């Protein structure tokens, strides 16, 4: 993984010092809250319902074991002993005191971490495939490119006060695990005409109040031109994007207003001016960064018979293996998903003790590296198959081995009204009750891949529009009301879910989702996925089961 050199380290330390000064000026009264708020927001510090929340960047979701230990230390020392992993592959601490934040940033800096641009109207953490460098279908490891984007976008002087926040995702594989279609810019790697690697560029995707899927902007962009092209897009957005209406200020609105062809003309015209500038990537720098992501020293092991044997002997291990393992391009290895979705638990939450223990397991079994997924789980990416059984037992004893990746209990949920100042309804308790109710049905009927996403307001942090089943919590006449969408997907077959009908109260929503699933089971053919059944038969049977023949 990337390791800071002196320049990276200096920048992060100077930024922490700068923020210390800003906090001091706020506490002394020199800065008013109105002046301070945009400053703290540019550094991941929100005021939530009960305390400040600090969002720490985990660039493209990659963590070293010592970094995870540093997060555990911060959770214990400055928070209530836990953290919450987000759909942007970051971590949030929910119980932070303003006066402590400068010390926290210093501790983060010492571990090569920061909170820069984890909020505010700037370029946010670039997300990528949690199986980068591991997936067999990968064209190229996207992480070096994500790091190049991280550096370019960090404290960018021109793009620090954009019309609205800006999110970039980059995928190195044809199968998309990064939800490219719902990002402001999506980059998917491919081979160009001459065999060189580059990107297909997508623009204008996003969720929120006006969900839209991204449109193709450029079929092939050579790797060396990545930054000049991004700069051209951002420049057009900075000048042309709307600033008069918060809900119309994302780039998706600009793209849909201008039309993709006109937007492309503007970008290409700007790009022509800056393509041959200092933004062109220097091969020496690309190589330097790439070298940081070279694969760990795998041992040549034949596929392990022991692994197969254990699965035969131990049904629980077999179930976990079937659900939470991802094939590794290195024979004899697997990538393991560490579930942060225990049945009845809070999606994405992790206790400091679990962090420390997992850091130890990462050192022992996976070259000291941990990854955060946009499903709010963690990954140990390089585990020998003959170690899987021991690892599983260790994870199980920590409560981190729920066998449910992409299954009905692997629910994505935002903090909702229990913590978030913008929320209109709670999401966590709904997720907890749903997973308890559905775990049993899944065990009996093997529901296969079925994703549920729950957002506590229209900001859609839990991406409910792209859950196979999406739930949006609203406030109706003073009470919580949950709107259900069906048919979303964030994979390469991306689609936005459609609202099934009127919303459900807090005491009805779990039963409503159960009704949908029970209805589906009667219509399901040959073990197909819920999403495929829905695409085959349409929403009518579900509507009828929920609302009768109205």
């Amino acid at each position: 993984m990337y390791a800071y050199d002196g320049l990276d380290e200096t920048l992060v330390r100077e930024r922490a010092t700068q923020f210390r000064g800003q906090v001091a000026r706020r506490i002394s009264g020199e800065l008013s809250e109105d002046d301070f708020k945009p400053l703290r927001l540019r550094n991941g510090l929100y005021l939530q319902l009960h305390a400040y929340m600090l969002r720490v960047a985990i660039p493209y979701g990659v963590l070293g074991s010592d970094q995870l230990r540093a997060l555990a230390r911060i959770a214990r020392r400055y928070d209530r002993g836990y953290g919450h992993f987000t759909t942007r592959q970051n971590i949030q601490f929910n119980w932070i005191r303003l006066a402590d934040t400068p010390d926290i940033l210093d501790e983060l800096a010492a571990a090569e971490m920061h909170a820069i641009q984890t909020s505010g109207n700037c370029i946010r953490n670039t997300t990528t495939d949690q199986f980068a460098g591991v997936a067999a279908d990968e064209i190229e490891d996207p992480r070096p490119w994500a790091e190049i984007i991280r550096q370019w976008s960090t404290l960018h002087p021109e793009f620090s006060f954009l019309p609205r926040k800006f999110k970039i995702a980059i995928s190195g594989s044809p199968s998309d695990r990064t939800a490219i279609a719902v990002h402001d810019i999506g980059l998917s790697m491919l081979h160009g005409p001459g065999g060189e690697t580059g990107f297909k560029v997508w623009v204008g995707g996003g969720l929120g109040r006006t969900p839209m899927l991204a449109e193709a902007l450029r079929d092939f962009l050579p790797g060396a031109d990545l930054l000049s092209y991004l700069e051209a897009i951002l420049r057009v957005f900075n000048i042309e994007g709307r600033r008069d209406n918060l809900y119309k200020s994302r780039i998706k609105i600009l793209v849909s207003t201008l039309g993709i062809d006109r937007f492309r003309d503007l970008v290409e015209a700007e790009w022509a001016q800056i393509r041959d500038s200092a933004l062109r990537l220097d091969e020496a720098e690309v190589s330097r960064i790439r070298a940081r992501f070279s694969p760990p020293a795998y041992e040549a092991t034949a596929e392990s018979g022991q692994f197969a044997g254990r699965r035969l002997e131990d049904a629980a291990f077999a179930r976990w293996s079937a659900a939470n393992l991802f094939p590794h391009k290195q024979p004899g290895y697997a990538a393991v998903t560490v579930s942060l979705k225990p049945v009845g638990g809070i999606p994405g939450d992790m206790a400091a003790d679990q962090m420390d223990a997992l850091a130890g397991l990462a050192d022992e079994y996976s070259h000291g590296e941990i990854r955060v997924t946009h499903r709010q789980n963690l990954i140990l990416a390089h585990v020998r198959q003959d170690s899987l059984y021991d690892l599983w037992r260790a994870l199980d004893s920590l409560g981190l081995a729920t066998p449910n990746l992409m299954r009905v209990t692997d629910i994505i949920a935002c903090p909702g009204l229990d913590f978030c100042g913008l929320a209109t309804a709670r999401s966590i308790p709904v997720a907890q009750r749903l997973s308890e109710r559905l775990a049993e049905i899944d065990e009996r009927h093997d529901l296969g891949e079925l994703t549920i996403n729950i957002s506590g307001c229209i900001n859609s942090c839990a991406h409910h529009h792209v859950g196979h089943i999406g739930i949006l919590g609203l406030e109706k006449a003073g009470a919580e009301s949950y709107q259900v969408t069906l048919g979303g997907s964030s994979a390469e077959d991306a689609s936005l879910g459609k609202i099934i009908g009127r919303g459900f109260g807090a005491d009805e929503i779990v039963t409503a989702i159960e009704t949908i699933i029970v209805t589906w089971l009667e219509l399901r053919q040959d073990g197909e996925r819920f999403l495929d059944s829905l695409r085959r038969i349409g929403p009518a049977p579900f509507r009828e089961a929920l609302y009768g023949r109205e």
Partner: protein
Amino acid sequence: MAHLVITGNRLRDGAVVWRGAAGDWSRDIADASIHATEGQLAASLDTARLEEASGRIIGVYEVEVETRDHGVVPARLRERVRADGPTVSVV
């Protein structure tokens, strides 16, 4: 007029606080001073906003409450969550 109390968050730690009769800020909504008339509320809000400007408290606003057997309870769920903490127990 509905009964109203005044709330905000403490600058230093973001904690939820409620404004008492003596102009003090308490972590406990039970200590909040209850306003039954527009005039009372307007006067308290004005002073509370001055304290906000001086920087100790941020985001001052009024909250509608009902008086129940066991004490004062905000009308909206959002404010009940602020008063009582998250409805879920954390890890």
